[in-house]
């Protein structure tokens, strides 16, 4: 198979409310930044993929207004609904299918437009006939998962709180993060209880932002001025849908996606071979669960992993040096923001977030659906 590289990245700052822009304008900003980064114009982009969600945007055909701003006027274009990592996957397929040499892919979310009714948006993920009238949303569903996971392995709320402390602290070095904060475990423990065991500082915000990647196959990558960041492995996988059909303390689809991605990348010891990971920590407990699912530690030892400092910026397996979702969560774009941060690390352009010199291999992760039902794992490399 031909190789694919990320040759351009662009993102807006993640903010609570971007009153100066509507969502197509945010996408335009990200696209312009990506083209500037890559040092090319739209004539070097062969086709476009957009990633959006009709519920979060409050628009049927939510991809309709972002085609033009993504430069797709006289080009082939398609649309994915789901996290940006999935959009990037489809963009990768289009770059490898023989039809196009380069693909631009965008993702966006403007949570500020629906903040007061966010529970309704995720409540709509529940089956309308069997479960919707019970009134659950993402937060209460994830509270069920958090409780089950923590009970099974004896994970404590303090260990989860440590994730919040680490990530908000990491965000102090991220000029694009929404909420960098210097907090303590006690601050998290004292924050307002939402649905046990989740408290306000265990929960990511709902933010505004847009981001963009430009992909190119190996031959075409030479036309772009950036150091290419290569796709080494990618896979995704979905669990059963109904919460009762799943063991919420397990994340088998993540394990399967990770195993496939590692196999593609030739990785046999992820903890040793991955230099940095950007994963979706929509809730503190999820960072612990996902680090276990990715094989950074044994099952049930996610709590020990974070308290040992291993996942700190200077640890042996840094996780979310950007501050993660806890410091700014753009629904739908979240996974693509993770990919961009991973690219920065490999390029050595992460500024204060840079975990070390010579990052060779980075992992980026995205989720879709309730309680991490569907996961997408990306392995990116410097060569």
């Amino acid at each position, binding site marked *: 198979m031909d190789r694919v590289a990320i040759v351009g990245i662009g993102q807006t700052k993640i903010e609570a409310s971007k009153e100066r822009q509507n969502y197509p304008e945010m996408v335009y900003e990200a696209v312009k930044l990506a083209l500037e980064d890559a040092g090319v114009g739209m004539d070097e982009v062969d086709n476009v993929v957009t990633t959006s969600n009709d519920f979060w945007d409050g628009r049927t055909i939510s991809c309709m207004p972002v085609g*033009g701003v993504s430069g797709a006027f006289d080009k082939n274009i398609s649309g994915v609904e789901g996290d940006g990592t999935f959009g990037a996957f489809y963009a990768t397929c289009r770059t490898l299918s023989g039809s196009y040499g380069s693909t631009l892919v965008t993702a966006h979310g403007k949570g500020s437009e629906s903040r007061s009714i966010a529970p309704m948006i995720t409540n709509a993920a529940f*089956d309308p006939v069997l479960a919707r009238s019970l009134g659950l949303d993402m937060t209460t569903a994830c509270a069920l998962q958090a409780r089950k996971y923590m009970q099974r392995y004896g994970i404590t709320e303090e260990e989860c709180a440590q994730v919040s402390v680490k990530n908000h602290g990491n965000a102090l070095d991220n000029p694009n993060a929404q909420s960098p904060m210097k907090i303590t475990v006690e601050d998290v423990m004292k924050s307002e209880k939402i649905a046990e065991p989740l408290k306000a500082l265990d929960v990511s915000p709902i933010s505004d932002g847009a981001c963009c990647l430009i992909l190119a196959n190996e031959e075409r990558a030479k036309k772009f001025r950036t150091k290419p960041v290569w796709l080494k492995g990618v896979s995704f996988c979905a669990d059963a849908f109904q919460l009762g059909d799943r063991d919420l303390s397990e994340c088998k689809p993540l394990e399967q996606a990770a195993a496939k991605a590692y196999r593609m990348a030739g990785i046999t010891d992820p903890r040793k071979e991955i230099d940095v990971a950007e994963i979706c920590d929509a809730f503190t407990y999820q960072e612990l669960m996902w680090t276990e699912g990715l094989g950074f530690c044994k099952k049930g030892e996610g709590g020990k992993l974070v308290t040992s400092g291993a996942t700190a910026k200077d640890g042996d397996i840094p996780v979310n040096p950007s501050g993660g979702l806890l410091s700014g969560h753009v629904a739908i774009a979240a996974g693509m923001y993770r990919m961009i941060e991973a690219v920065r690390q490999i390029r050595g352009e992460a500024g204060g977030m840079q975990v070390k010199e010579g990052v060779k291999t980075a992992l980026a992760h995205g989720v879709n659906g309730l309680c991490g039902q569907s996961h997408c794992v990306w392995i990116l490399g410097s060569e």
Partner: protein
Amino acid sequence: MGKRAAIIGTGQTYCKSIRRDVNGQELINEAVTRALQDAELTIDDIDGVVIGNMDHFEGINYVDCWSIDGSGGYMKPTMKLCTGGTTGTTLGIGGYHMVASGMFDKLLVIGWEKNSESDTTGAIVTATDPILDRGVMAGALAGLAIEASEYAAAYGATSKDAARVSVRDRKHACNNPYAHLRKEVTIEEVLSSPVISDPLRLLDMCPRTDGACAVIYANEDVAEKLCPQPAWVVGTSNRHCYSRFADIKGQTGMLSLTTAAKELWAKTGVKEPLKEIDVMEMYQPYSWGGLIWFEDMGFCKKGEGPKYIWDGVTDMGGECPVNPSGGVISTNPIGATGLIRCAEIAGQIMGKAGDRQVPDVELALATGFGGCFWSDMILYSKNKPA
């Protein structure tokens, strides 16, 4: 450098205004079961699932995750594509790229819609920009009515010409057991049906339907081993050149379709579409499209569409039959509609089209249209591309 890819199996549900007997997941499962049977595969043989529909029509978020019960996507890669009305052909194009890339060998692609579950106009209106357009926009029809008016004014085509297209499609549908509307209509009936948005009358328009369609794409590593006559993809192209409905500003045709067609013919080497294409399933949600878009794609000169329609060129038995399935005017479960075009073409190439089979099909075209003036085109062939 990209693999060649084909459809190796298809499945459709029986379509009705309201499929009361099943919920959405069960509807999806019907199409999936039939596609697997057609390809003689089990769900365990499938490497991934791609699905699409228009969210607001059923009011379900994260449909790729919700549909697992019916799609067979349990512990498989599952993803959703959606581009509005063109979702079905977007899926037909997406399935192709995903297996051609080598990321999957055998991919299940599903399009579905349970239009009966929502107020279609209410759901469609949210496609409009809330600040600039929504206050003055009314559903999907206005744009088409304007296109028809502009075209008629420029070329002198009449409602009777358009009605002949409806008569054709509704007659063809009588050969299709899966179609929603299976009763012929006459020119007089079309011309006396109620006006919805001048000059469009009820019988110029497509219905709302509950239905699902599934196809299985495979790349050349496995396609020929699994299927005696795969429907190979020769090329795809699409355009979406409008951000707002007002962008159609005085055009006598579909700009996105005209430019997509130019690209497709150039990259596939088709010089005379009318001569070279043996059958077409056109995403034609209204009768006038059968005149205007036939011209826009280069099957004849601008303004000459009516002559070809009246001469029977596009009827069964004609030089280039259009919509042997009855087309969108007879069946329209939106998320599935475009994919049904692909499935019907695959059936034509495989020789499995039953009473709607066109003889000696070698090259065949499926097109997609979306209410935001999105145009998709996919060219399929009996022969493996060079």
